[in-house]
Structure formats: C-alpha cells, structure tokens
C-alpha cells in the first residue's frame, strides 16, 4: 500500500464521512461544516491527482465564498434545528431506496466505462495554470465569456431579490 493510496483512502473516508454527516446533522450549520469538510477533502484529492490550481480554486471559491455565503445566510435567518416532517409519503418511503438505486446505476456505469483508464498522474506540466488559462482564453473563450455574463446576471438577481422593497 503506497503512500498516495493511503492518502487517498484517508481523504475519501473524510469526504464520505462529511457527506454522511451532512445528511445526518440536524442543524444547518453543522451540515454546512460537514460540507466544508467534504470540499477540503476533495481539494486534497485534486492535489493528489496533481490538479493544484483546481484544488486552490475549489478551496477559495467553494470554501471561501460559497459556503461562507451559506453560513452567513444561516446565521442571518437564525435557522434553528431542522424539523423532520414527513408530509411527503412518497419521499418518506421511496426516496432513500430510489436515491441509492440511482447512485448504484451511476457507479456501475462509471466503473464499466472508466475501468480501462490509466491512473491519473500528477503531472504539473499538464495542468499548470498556464495551460488552463490558455485553454480558457482560446478554445473555451465563448463559454468563459458566457459564464462572466451569467455571474453578472446572478449578481443583479441577488440584489433584486435581497433588497427590501421600499
């Protein structure tokens, strides 16, 4: 069992643990914290795969911005414990098994399709920030601009939504 494998399993366990606790925790803040754990673990996995830039962005954007936003909102709304109502019989009985079925399908499909792939090699050259930015500004320039536009729209939408009408 080589070092990377160990690291992988540790991080994977961390991620799964975080995801499970995200589900089981009853307080949104705790769920949020669990999710942060997941994200950090994933960032670690990216680093393990040699995708440093993505890892950093993952932490900065997801960890530093999005999740902060979540926690901020939770604090703002002063959300209390989650009340476990069961108004939806469908979801109560069929929900979990179906969800598991979907994940099983996906897992099976992924394994079948990705079985023959070579192991991801941490090659700095491949995913150096330069390469990514080159791609981003040449091949994917239109999607890139689109995303910027999307962000703009999102900002406007958020402002419109959040401001109290006066």
């Amino acid at each position: 069992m080589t070092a990377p494998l160990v690291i992988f399993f540790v991080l994977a366990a961390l991620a799964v643990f975080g995801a499970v606790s995200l589900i089981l925790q009853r307080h949104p803040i705790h769920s949020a914290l669990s999710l942060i754990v997941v994200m950090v673990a994933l960032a670690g996995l990216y680093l393990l795969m040699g995708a440093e830039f993505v890892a950093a962005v993952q932490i900065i954007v997801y960890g530093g911005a999005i999740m902060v936003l979540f926690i901020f909102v939770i604090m703002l709304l002063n959300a209390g414990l989650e009340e476990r109502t069961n108004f939806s019989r469908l979801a109560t009985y069929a929900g979990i098994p179906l969800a598991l079925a979907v994940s099983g399908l996906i897992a099976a499909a992924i394994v079948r399709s990705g079985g023959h792939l070579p192991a991801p090699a941490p090659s700095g050259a491949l995913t150096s920030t330069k390469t990514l930015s080159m791609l981003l500004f040449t091949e994917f320039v239109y999607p890139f601009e689109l995303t910027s536009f999307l962000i703009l729209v999102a900002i406007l939408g958020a402002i419109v939504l959040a401001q109290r009408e006066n």
Partner: protein
Amino acid sequence: MVPTNYYLILSAILFGLGIVGFVFKRNIITLFMAIELMLNAVNLAFVAFSQSLGKPDGEVFVLFVIVVAAAEAAVGLGIIILTARNRHSLNVERVDLLKL
C-alpha cells in the same frame, strides 16, 4: 498510484449521498448544500477523467461548474431569504402552496 476507478466510485458515492440528502433533508438551505455536494462529486469525476486522459479540458469544465455553482448559490440564497421572510419557515414541506 491510485486507479481512476477509485476516484470515480468515490464521486458516484458522493453523488448518491447528495441525492439522498436532497430527498431526505427538509431544510431548504441543506437541500442547496446537497446540490452543491452533487456538483462537487461531478467535479471530482471531471478532474479524475481529465487527469487520467491527460486532457486539461475536464478541469476547465470544473471551473465552469464552480462558476455556475457560485451564481446559483447567490440567486438561490436570495430566494431562500425571501421565502423565509414570507413563509416564516425554512422547511420545504411547509412551502407547499404550489398545489391544487
């Protein structure tokens, strides 16, 4: 080295847990988190593929996904705030006016 499949399976598991959360949770904010979890799982698969195939495209997609997630969070949380103000509850099962 870690086989690609491990990453893929992990991402599948995370995705499934995300779905489970989406069905299981009642708090609307937590639902959002479950969605984010799914997105992250997808990202993991993306990165794994791109790394093992030696193509950086996958990571570019990851960046896009992150951007979209950010936008979604911004708007979605705004909506959540409004909902909470109007309905005085964050429980999605109590926000069920959209029915006959």
